[in-house]
C-alpha cells in the first residue's frame, strides 16, 4: 500500500527528513489502511463517447477527520473524482473503498456520504426545516428526534431564524448554510463539498471559509473539498491533492505543495512562481541559459525547472548577501496596495518579484538575489506517475 502523502515528499528532491511543514495539524503519514475513511485504488473514469479519460488512474487515501482538498483547474477531473466517491458516477476501472468495504458499485443512497452541491440543490418544495430534516426522514428517524436535531443543526449553521422559509426566499449564503446543515445532520462518515463557495461573493466566501473550517473541526467529520481556488485550498486543508488532466500531480500538506512542488504544473498553479530551465553543471551549480546559479535542492536529472517564489527574491541592497546575485532591469511595476509586483529582466529571463511601494520603477537597474535554500528544482519529466 502506497501512502501518497509520504511518497509525494520522496519525489520532491528526495529529502525525506524535510518539512518543518509538518505542523501540529499534520497527521501521521504512516497509517494502516483500517483507519482510512476513503481509499481510491487505480481509479479511472472515461465518459461514454470520449477518448481521453476524465480521471486517469488515480490513488487517494483520505484519513478520518481531515479536511482534504482536491485542487485543480476546470477539466482536471476533481469533480468527477468527487462524484465517484459520492456514487453518482461509476469508475471505468479501479476500486473505491469506504473503510474496509468496497463501495465501487454501491448506489449513492446506500453510502453514508453526503454532498454539498455546487448549486446547493435544495428541495424547492420543502422549507428550510424540512430540507435539513430530509436525510433523517429517509433514515427513518422518529419525528420528535428529527425536530430537535434539525433545530440543533440550524443553530449550528446560524439559519434558525429562517427555518420556515422556502429555498427561493433565501440568499446565496443562507442556501449554502442550509445545504451544509443537510449534509451534516445524518452524521455521515464523509461530507463532500463541490466548489461550495463558487457562487458567493468574495466577502461571503471568506466568511464561509471560516464557518466551514470551524464546523468541520467541531463535528469531526471528514471533509473532501473540491476547488479550483488555490488560496482556499491552502487556507483550509490538512491535505491537498493537486490534479490536472485527470491525474494527481501531488498530494501533501499545504506547506508541502507550496514549498516543495512535485511538478512544474504544481509550482505554477499553487501560488505564483518563477520557473527557470536549468542544466546541472556540477555539484551545487547550474546554468539557466546565460546565467550561472548556485542550487541546493535539485533532482538528479541533467535538466530541471528551478522554482523560485517571488517573495523569496531579494532586491537591491538586500540581494548583496545572497547565494545568487544577478543584475536586472525593471520592466514593469504594478501597484498592489501593500506592495508592488515587479517584472525584472535578467538576461533572457523575466523574473517576478515583490518590492516595497515606491522602491523601484520601470527602467531602473536593480540587483536580484535569492538563497539557494529558497529555490526548489523540479524534474522536468516529473510526470504524475512519478508523483504517485
Amino acid at each position, binding site marked *: 500500500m502506497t501512502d501518497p502523502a509520504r511518497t509525494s515528499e520522496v519525489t520532491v528532491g528526495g529529502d525525506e527528513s524535510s518539512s518543518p511543514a509538518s505542523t501540529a495539524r499534520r497527521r501521521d503519514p504512516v497509517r494502516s489502511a483500517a483507519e482510512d475513511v476513503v481509499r481510491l485504488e487505480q481509479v479511472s473514469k472515461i465518459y461514454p463517447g470520449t477518448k481521453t479519460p476524465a480521471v486517469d488512474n488515480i490513488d487517494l487515501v483520505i484519513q478520518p477527520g481531515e479536511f482534504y482538498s482536491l485542487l485543480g483547474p476546470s477539466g482536471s477531473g476533481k469533480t468527477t473524482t468527487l462524484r465517484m466517491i*459520492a*456514487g*453518482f458516477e461509476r469508475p471505468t476501472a479501479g476500486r473505491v473503498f469506504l473503510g474496509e468495504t468496497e463501495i465501487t458499485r454501491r*448506489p*449513492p*443512497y*446506500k453510502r453514508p*456520504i*453526503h*454532498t454539498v*452541491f455546487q*448549486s446547493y*440543490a*435544495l*428541495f*424547492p*418544495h420543502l422549507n428550510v426545516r424540512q430540507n435539513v430534516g*430530509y*436525510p433523517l*426522514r*429517509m*433514515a427513518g428517524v422518529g419525528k420528535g428526534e428529527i425536530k430537535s436535531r434539525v433545530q440543533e443543526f440550524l443553530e449550528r449553521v446560524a439559519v434558525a431564524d429562517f427555518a420556515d422559509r*422556502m*429555498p*427561493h*426566499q433565501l440568499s446565496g449564503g443562507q442556501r449554502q448554510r442550509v445545504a451544509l446543515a*443537510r*449534509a451534516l445532520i*445524518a452524521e455521515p462518515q464523509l461530507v463532500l463539498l463541490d466548489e461550495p463557495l463558487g457562487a458567493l461573493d468574495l466577502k461571503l466566501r471568506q466568511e464561509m471559509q471560516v464557518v466551514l473550517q470551524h464546523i468541520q473541526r467541531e463535528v469531526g467529520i471528514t471533509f473532501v473539498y473540491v476547488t479550483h481556488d488555490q488560496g482556499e485550498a491552502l487556507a483550509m486543508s490538512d491535505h491537498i491533492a493537486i490534479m490536472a488532466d485527470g491525474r494527481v500531480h501531488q498530494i501533501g500538506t499545504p506547506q508541502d505543495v507550496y514549498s516543495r512542488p512535485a511538478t512544474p504544473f504544481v509550482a505554477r498553479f499553487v501560488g505564483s512562481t518563477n520557473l527557470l530551465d536549468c542544466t546541472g553543471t556540477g555539484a551545487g551549480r547550474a546554468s539557466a541559459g546565460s546565467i550561472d546559479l548556485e542550487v541546493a535542492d535539485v533532482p538528479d536529472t541533467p535538466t530541471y525547472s528551478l522554482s523560485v517564489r517571488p517573495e523569496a527574491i531579494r532586491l537591491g541592497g538586500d540581494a548583496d548577501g545572497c547565494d545568487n546575485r544577478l543584475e536586472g532591469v525593471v520592466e514593469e511595476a504594478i501597484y498592489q496596495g501593500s506592495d508592488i509586483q515587479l517584472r525584472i529582466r535578467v538576461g533572457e529571463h523575466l523574473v517576478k518579484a515583490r518590492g516595497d511601494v515606491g522602491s523601484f520603477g520601470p527602467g531602473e537597474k536593480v540587483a536580484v538575489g535569492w538563497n539557494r535554500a529558497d529555490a526548489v528544482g523540479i524534474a522536468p519529466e516529473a510526470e504524475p506517475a512519478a508523483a504517485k
Partner: protein
Amino acid sequence: MGRPTEKLRGAARYLLALPAIVWVGLLVIAPNLVLVLYSFWKNELFGVNKTFTLENYEKVVQSDAVLTLMWRSLLIAGGAATLATLIAFPLAYVVVRYFGRFKFYAALLVIVPLWVSFLMRVYSWKIILGENGILNGFLQSIGVISHPSTVFLYSPWAVAVVMTYVGIPYVFLSSYTLLDRIPPNLFEAAADCGASPLRTFRTVIWPIARPAAVIGFMLVFVIVFGDYVSPTLVGGLSGTMVGSVVLQAFGALNNWPYGAALALSTVVMTLVVLGLLSLLLRKRIVLEGETA
C-alpha cells in the same frame, strides 16, 4: 425602444389589444352568450319564441335519462383521465430521466398521434376491438377464446379505453415540460440524502410535478367529457354519453333551447370538477433559476 408597453398610454394600448379583444369577443364570448340566451328561450314547433322560461333546465334536471348519462359521462371521462394520467405521467418521468439525449425523440413519438385526425384515431380502435379485429385475432391465436367475442366493442369500457388513448399525449405533454425543468441535481441530492429511486419519486419528484399531472388530467377531462364522437363510434347504446344527447337536441330533435340548456349543464358540471381539482394546484413551487 426599451420597454414599449410602458411608454404607451391610454388609447394606444387598447388599440394594440383590439385584435385580441375582437377575436375573443366574437369567437368566444358572443357564441356562448347566444347559447345562454337560447337556454332561457321557449321552443316552439316552427322556431324559437324569445320569451324567458326555465322549462329547458327543468327538463334537464327532471330527466332520468339525462342524469344517468351525466353520471356515466362523469365516470367514463374521470376514469379515462385517471388512466391516462397514470400511464402518461410515469411515462414522461421515464423519458425525461432515462432517455438522455433521445428524450426529445421519445417525446415526439408519444405526441405524434395528435397529428392524426381525431376521427381517425377513434375509428382505428374499431379495427382493434371489433369482432374481426386485432384483439380478437390475437386472443384466438393464443387460444384464450375459441370464437371472436363481441364484448370488446360497443361498451362503456371501449369508450373509456379510447378516451384514455386520446388523453395520453396531453398528460404526457404537460408532465414532460415540467419534469424536464426539474434540475437533475435534485435527483442526485435526494439519492445523496439516502432516498432510493422510488422514494425520490414519492418525496421529491411527485410533490414538485403534481401540478403538471393535475393539469394534464384536467385537459383530458375537458376534452373527453363532452365528446360524442367516441361514444358514437365505439360506445354502442350502453356507452352513450351526455355529448350525444346534446347533439341530438340540436340535430334530430331540433330543440335548440333544450340543447343549449343541456350543453350549459355539462359546462357547469365540468367547471365543478375543475374547481375541485384546482384545490390540488394551489401551492406554487419555485424551481431553481426562476423568480417567485
